[in-house]
């Protein structure tokens, strides 16, 4: 593990990504103390005389939105929404995926076949459309969005964990544990799971870029977190009709989504290289 850490530290791009994540997480956590204005406050002077959003200036650093609210304050609160949903949904997805993948890989037989066929089936299902259908049926709230995103995102992890577990099953120490009479849940939890930890770490990071993007997309389509809660995709959705005259309303939240997704991608990629040097330089 310390060997991996040393390799990770040499990956400048990944380290930069990790610093970005740390900075944004801090900003999100301490948002109430940082924001210059109340993110829900509709300022009278937040709109121009014609009633249009105000461009960035000294008073409102990143401009205002269509209701005269301070964009910078809303972006900081939006970071909370994005990170909470992204991280929680991905954590749930990785748990589901690991449980399914490892069980299928170790137990094998018809249970394993059934689980992996179901995984194949989910692969053929366009995740966004499934999420749309689920979100349209269930009334969207923060935790519903988390659940919907988790339900459509566990498949990748499941596949990876299945392959990894299959390669562990043949190993001597598993055979020894079985010979000692350990029951399969115990073997899975005590002997197999620790060996999956590096892969779990990688997917727990890489996956967040996917869930953050999916949350932003659902909110943009109007079926994510509902207003007035600030979310980056939601801000863009609300200001879509104004964006030609007020492009900052798309640009700043858009860049925020991009930066967060990118940071988790490069950190996850760096972790993968660091934890599994045989895969270095391959995908």
């Amino acid at each position, binding site marked *: 593990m310390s060997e991996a850490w040393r390799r990770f530290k040499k990956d400048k791009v990944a380290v930069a990504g990790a610093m970005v994540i740390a900075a944004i997480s801090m900003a999100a956590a301490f948002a109430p103390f940082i924001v210059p204005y109340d993110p829900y406050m509709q300022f009278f002077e937040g709109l121009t005389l014609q009633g249009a959003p105000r461009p960035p200036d000294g008073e409102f650093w990143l401009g205002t939105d269509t209701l005269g609210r301070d964009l910078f304050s809303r972006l900081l609160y939006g970071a909370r929404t994005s990170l909470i949903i992204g991280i929680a949904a991905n954590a749930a997805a990785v748990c589901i995926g690991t449980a399914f993948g490892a069980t299928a890989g170790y137990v094998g037989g018809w249970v394993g076949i059934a689980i992996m066929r179901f995984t194949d089936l989910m692969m053929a299902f366009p995740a966004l459309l499934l999420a*749309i259908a689920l979100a349209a049926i269930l009334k969207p709230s923060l935790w519903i969005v988390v659940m919907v995103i988790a339900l459509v995102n566990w498949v990748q992890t499941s596949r990876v964990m299945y392959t990894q577990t299959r390669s562990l099953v043949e190993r001597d120490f598993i055979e020894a544990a079985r010979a000692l009479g350990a029951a399969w849940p115990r073997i899975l939890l005590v002997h197999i799971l620790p060996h999956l930890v590096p892969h779990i770490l990688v997917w727990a990071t890489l996956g967040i870029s996917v869930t953050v993007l999916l949350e*932003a997309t659902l909110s*943009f389509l*109007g079926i994510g977190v509902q207003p007035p809660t600030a979310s980056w995709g939601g801000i863009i959705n609300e200001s879509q009709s104004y964006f030609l005259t007020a492009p900052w309303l798309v640009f700043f939240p858009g860049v925020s989504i991009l930066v967060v997704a990118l940071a988790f991608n490069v950190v996850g990629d760096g972790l993968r290289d660091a934890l599994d040097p045989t895969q270095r330089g391959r995908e």
Partner: protein
Amino acid sequence: MFRFLAGRLFQSAFILLGVTIITFGLLYLIPVDPARMIAGRSATPQTVESIRHQLGLDRSIPVQYARYLGNLMQGDMGRSYVQKARVSELIASRLPATLQLMAAAIFFELLIGLPAGIFAATRRNRPSDKAVMVFSFVGVSAPQFVVGLLLIYVFAYQLELFPLGGYGTIWHVVLPALTLGVTIAGWYSRMSRSSMVDVLRQDYIRTARAKGVTESRVVLVHGLRNAILPIVAMIGIDIGLYAQGIVVVEAVFGWPGIGQLAWLAIQRIDIPIIMGVTLVAAVGIVIGNLLADIATSLIDPRVRHG
């Protein structure tokens, strides 16, 4: 080869059957009552009851599923709650626009992703490889609706090079196709890089180098000839990304395809349309994967015997 094909076809059919079970479940086990939705708000209980009977909603779930599947086999995906039209007809009338958009997007995907992937593979682990791979992550991490809106702002609104949206001429397709192409090229360049890296590790490449063949010839002739078909076949795997992308991109650009149809249906919770589009997308994904598999197996017999 025949056994491999038959096996893969059977598997695809099996997956599609599973997809219909999920779409059926979402269609019929939802809290919304389809009979009431179709009858409209002012309908009498008798009308709702007769529609329910007509749709077979008063039968048991297995019977309803069998009926649903039977209808699907005949191309009947039910009726829209709002538009009262047949879902299959709505989709059929909009599918050509979506396919045009996808064809143009795949063109951009290849145009950007293929050279980037090959270039990075030949400079493996060097700074230029790193730079290309970071860029590919930017493409992967960029939300398509943001890319689309910014392209509209810069190229349609400020520079007035392309229309703001809509459908019609070849100029209309450029920005939406570019939005899909640029973002998906991120994945594609990574995948083409890793399979090119694999090819460049093969013994015959070492032999060619040992013979003194120039490096550019090794890559472009010896390497690419063996890598190109599986790399192009990867497009088939990307259909899943397109299936998601079209909803967002068609909504942003007002492109009259099935993605926009799904987007309009979201606002009215018109579940039959959403499920219809999902089903069509799933068929597309399964066919794409099947074609990719077949193309790969034609090149590499190990795939079909492995």
